[in-house]
């Protein structure tokens, strides 16, 4: 029973990583860049909930909506201002810019909210579920249900809709996509919008799980989700989902049965082993040579 309960909370943590990893992997797939500011968007999303619900006193659902809107606008704006001018620059410049954006967002949060940990308001009110001696946290249940819905909808969107197909076309060949009448700029904006909206949702779950937020709160889940995306195969959407969930489970079980201090080391160790055995990640496609 204890194992099952650890497994389920690992699953729920993994679902949060998966939501974040989706943003990394979609942006990588379409814009071919690693957006290291992605984790900080989560932190801004969590602070938005804090400001609207705890400080301004709005109801929880307004907090969620505000957070999704703020993150979406932020993500699209970051792309337009910081990354778009570097579309043809070398990848190292883009990477350094992304790290710069990350520090910028942390500094803005530091200026507005200060450096201390602030307690995250309760936005998810769900009672624990008892199945015999097994108790599942309400928070975990809500996280798992919402994340599953999001993943199903996202998968259908990417595979079945006209816009989703256009996104795949852009990720494969930008010039050819433009010749089909697909605007690469708009597609990249859309990708940042979706990734950042998912980050907002992840921020709410993360804040609810750990109960606090500070200006650096996005850094660790950001890195873990990046690891999850690479683990699953960067650029692959099912890969990000699988990578995130496996990472959450491994982390939680390591904490429970091996050592809390070593949990992160184990997570990164597993990544290294996977990359040695399969360099493209679990579900990564092999990189095709351009003819």
């Amino acid at each position, binding site marked *: 029973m204890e194992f099952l309960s650890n497994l389920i909370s690992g699953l729920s943590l993994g679902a949060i990583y998966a939501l974040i990893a989706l943003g990394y992997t979609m942006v990588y797939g379409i814009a071919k860049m690693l957006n290291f500011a992605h984790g900080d968007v989560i932190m801004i999303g969590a602070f938005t909930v804090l400001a609207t619900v705890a400080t301004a006193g709005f109801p929880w659902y307004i907090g969620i909506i505000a957070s999704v809107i703020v993150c979406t606008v932020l993500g699209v704006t970051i792309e337009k201002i910081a990354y778009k001018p570097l579309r043809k620059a070398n990848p190292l410049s883009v990477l350094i810019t992304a790290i710069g954006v990350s520090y910028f967002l942390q500094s803005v949060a530091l200026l507005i909210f200060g450096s201390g940990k602030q307690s995250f308001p309760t936005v998810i009110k769900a009672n624990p579920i008892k199945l015999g001696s097994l108790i599942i946290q309400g928070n975990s249940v809500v996280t798992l249900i919402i994340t599953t819905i999001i993943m199903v909808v996202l998968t259908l969107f990417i595979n079945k809709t006209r816009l989703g197909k256009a996104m795949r076309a852009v990720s*494969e060949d930008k010039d*050819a996509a*433009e*010749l*089909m*009448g*697909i*605007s690469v700029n708009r597609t990249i904006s859309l990708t940042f919008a979706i990734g950042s909206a998912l980050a907002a949702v992840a921020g709410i779950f993360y804040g609810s799980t750990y109960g606090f937020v500070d200006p650096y709160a996005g850094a660790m889940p950001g890195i873990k989700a990046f690891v999850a995306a690479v683990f699953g195969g960067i650029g692959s959407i099912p890969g990000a989902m699988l990578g995130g969930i496996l990472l959450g489970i491994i982390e939680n079980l390591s904490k429970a049965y091996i050592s809390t201090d070593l949990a992160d080391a184990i997570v990164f160790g597993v990544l290294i082993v996977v990359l040695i055995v399969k360099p493209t990640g679990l579900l990564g496609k092999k990189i*095709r040579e351009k003819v």
Partner: protein
Amino acid sequence: MMLEANHLNVYYGNIHALKDVSFSVGEGEIVALIGANGAGKSTTLKTISGMLRSQTGSISFLGEDISKTESFRMVNKGLAHVPEGRRIFQQMPVMENLEMGAYTSKGDITEGIKEVFRHFPRLEERKKQIAGTLSGGEQQMLAIGRAMMSKPKLLMLDEPSMGLAPILVEEIFEIIRLFHEAGTTILLVEQNAGKALAIANRAYVLESGRIALTGTGAELMQSEAIKKAYLGG
């Protein structure tokens, strides 16, 4: 004239790839653009479709200046470009590639897909197959079929015969002729000068980024200079 390009000068950094290139394509024509490897043929097509910009001059299509139009808007204006090397979406099935060809079409696309399958029955047999697994000839058919999905007024083809066995080259040229008969104007880039001149109403010869010669297909086939340089004696 349907397409008029005047005084194009295109650079890749320091490389002056197109030097004062002017040419035109009339409605209903097949115009060929021939020249050796590196002459600037692909650069010319990319400049027309907005993937590259000319430093000077103008490009007009159906009376409208398109020299500053973003490339993704071209297909809606009736200009389709089948790029060199086909550039089909390798990881998508044949059917989705065709759907992408009709990305900007508002209406029902099943009729367009039927039309493509009528010309290329082999694509219909493989409609669920991932495009990257098609043979070279089938990929070229898909690239042309995909471009036809937008029902273009002007179809620009960049070396459609490249790397194909002679029998497939025949087949591709036959399809080009059929599309032309059905009312599509064609701008054809080829290294295979003999075939291109045979099918073209008019042709331009590019040499090191300059238009060196122009005339009707028949005239150029008779020209001693062309025979020597491009038709193997």
